[in-house]
């Protein structure tokens, strides 16, 4: 544990503490002024701009998670119980996309979703639409679709791993005792796969809430998330590191609260 703890302390705890201290400082021109002011936090909680972006970020993250986790769960279930012999092969195929770069994958989605992209061209060729569906790109929908595509492999990994520890016998026993499929899912499969489910949820929710590259590239002119604002505070003329640090902490706190709430809701549902 000591090496892991040391690594965690040096590369996570110490930087986070530095960031926390910085969040109470002030920026004056190009200089950082050591201080203990709550002005940065006050500004975050009183600014309508940040409130809107925070809510939008939580919304996009939740919708993305609500797509990614059920799809990953279904896929993992099929890999484990329906196509068990081909499970590893399917896993490799799912993970294949991780071999390409993050930016490359985002641009690939832009190619698929663009006005003259693969999806719109196909729909027009099939005669299903007359004009390109413009909401498919440069919108919140595009952000959700792209994030879902990016995060799905990451969610499959812990879920499939968790399901490997679920014996088929438990599911069959439940069904033999007369439980419906939904009841078996809720009271047997989900509780047993809960560690994987929790990790998948964390990957999907926290990573999508913190992403700022995807909204910048496919989000268009009205899909900026809080991550974009935080990034702006750390670069270029007019940047404000202390404000950015405070924003980062507020976002971490809100997202952790939302994550813990969601995990507890899942746990409650399984015991209900």
């Amino acid at each position, binding site marked *: 544990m000591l090496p892991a703890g040391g690594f965690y302390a040096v590369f996570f705890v110490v930087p986070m503490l530095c960031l926390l201290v910085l969040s109470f400082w002030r920026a004056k021109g*190009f200089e950082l002024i050591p201080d203990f002011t709550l002005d940065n936090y006050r500004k975050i909680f009183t600014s309508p701009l940040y409130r809107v972006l925070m809510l939008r970020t939580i919304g996009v993250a939740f919708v993305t998670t609500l797509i990614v986790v059920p799809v990953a769960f279904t896929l993992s279930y099929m890999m484990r119980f329906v196509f068990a012999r081909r499970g590893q092969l399917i896993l490799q195929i799912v993970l294949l996309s991780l071999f390409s770069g993050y930016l490359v994958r985002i641009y690939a989605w832009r190619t698929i979703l*663009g006005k003259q992209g693969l999806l719109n061209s196909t729909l027009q060729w099939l005669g299903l639409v007359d004009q390109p569906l413009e909401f498919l790109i*440069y919108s919140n929908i595009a952000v959700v679709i792209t994030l879902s595509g990016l995060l799905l492999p990451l969610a499959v990994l812990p879920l499939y791993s968790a399901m490997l520890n679920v014996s088929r016998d438990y599911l069959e026993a439940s069904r033999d005792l007369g439980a419906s499929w939904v009841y078996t899912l809720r009271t047997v499969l989900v509780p047993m796969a809960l560690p994987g489910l929790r990790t998948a949820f964390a990957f999907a929710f926290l990573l999508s809430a913190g992403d700022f590259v995807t909204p910048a590239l496919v989000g268009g002119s009205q899909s900026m998330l809080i991550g974009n604002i935080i990034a702006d505070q750390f670069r270029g003329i007019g940047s404000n590191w202390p404000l950015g640090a405070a924003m980062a902490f507020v976002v971490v706190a809100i997202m952790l609260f939302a994550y813990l709430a969601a995990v507890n809701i899942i746990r409650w549902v399984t015991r209900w």
Partner: protein
Amino acid sequence: MDDRLKVFLDAKLNADVSRRRFLQGAAGLSTLTVLGATSQSYAADGKLGGELNFLGWDGEHGGNVAKPFLEQNNIKMNASFQSAADEALTRLNTGGRGAMDILTPNKDFQTAILKAGTELFQPLDLARIPTASGLFPAFKDAPWLVKDGKTYGIPIIWGDEPCVFNPKKWDAMPAKYTDFADPKYKGELVLLDDPFGNIWLWAKSLDMPEPNRLTEEQLQQVLDAMLKSKPNVVTIGASHGDMADVLVRGDASIGIGGWAYQVMIAKEKGVELVVGSPSVDGTFYWSDSYALAVDAPNVDNAYGFIDFMTKPESNAALAAELASGCTVEAAYDLMPEDIRSMFPYDNVRQPGGGILGTQIVVPPQEPDGDVVGAPSWVEAWQTFKAS
């Protein structure tokens, strides 16, 4: 040479690239051939050799161009690249003092630093850069590089940020940026993610007396005017490369605050784009310079490097690599015609910085009386993006 350069740049189109990042690795350029004959050994005086630390925009370290100079003088360049204009200052303030030699600030950043009196650059001894006498008149006494009679940078490249548009959709750009609010531009505009450039352009369009010095009320007026155009904006490009990609894909037909080189990129993709800024408002200009960091540990190497890179052959090669305007007068004739013709050189043939000298885009860092500071501009831009 040009074909190989274009192919390379084209291949980079789908990466997240800034203007400068397009260029690194264009190793096939014939610049080495040109420079091979002109490179002299600066080691003759026994001062050069060892290390040279570069922190600046990608490509401006002259990976190909400076190679003969570095090799002949046994200099090992440690190049690292910035992703934001203020990265050198951050590095200086976080333990980097005494570890940086050459920096490449842009005009706006250097203006802000010198005005604020912030310690980052050291004055240059021009006697040690004799090639600087060959700069275009506008760059010889560039006001953004001079403070208290001391010069703090040698310009290396320059350019402007015009509108780039699809001529199949539009004959010309409107007279003013505020005209982009017309509903006929709906779904046609892509802007660069640049708070200062965009706010400055709209402030100029609203005939603000000093577009870089706005009061809170004026800034709100500018924001209101910009928001009228917002429904017509498809997306905000993360970089010039990203913006070009949006235009090439046909997701938008007009790029505001673009780069002339986007025309060449699009041509390689079989898409025709042309340059043409609003006739009344025009656009703004930028320039990057070589500067010497305060407490630079390898001053002799740095001077040798700057002097070598300011030779006409070096400057032409670097400007061609970076698809930008050259800053040395004799380099003009050495530039490839397609790149040379992209920039209005009349602007830099005038003394006193020309339009680059009089045009200040960046606001003050801190509020100055009623005039708001740069953070307010950033917040206004964020409001625009979030609306």
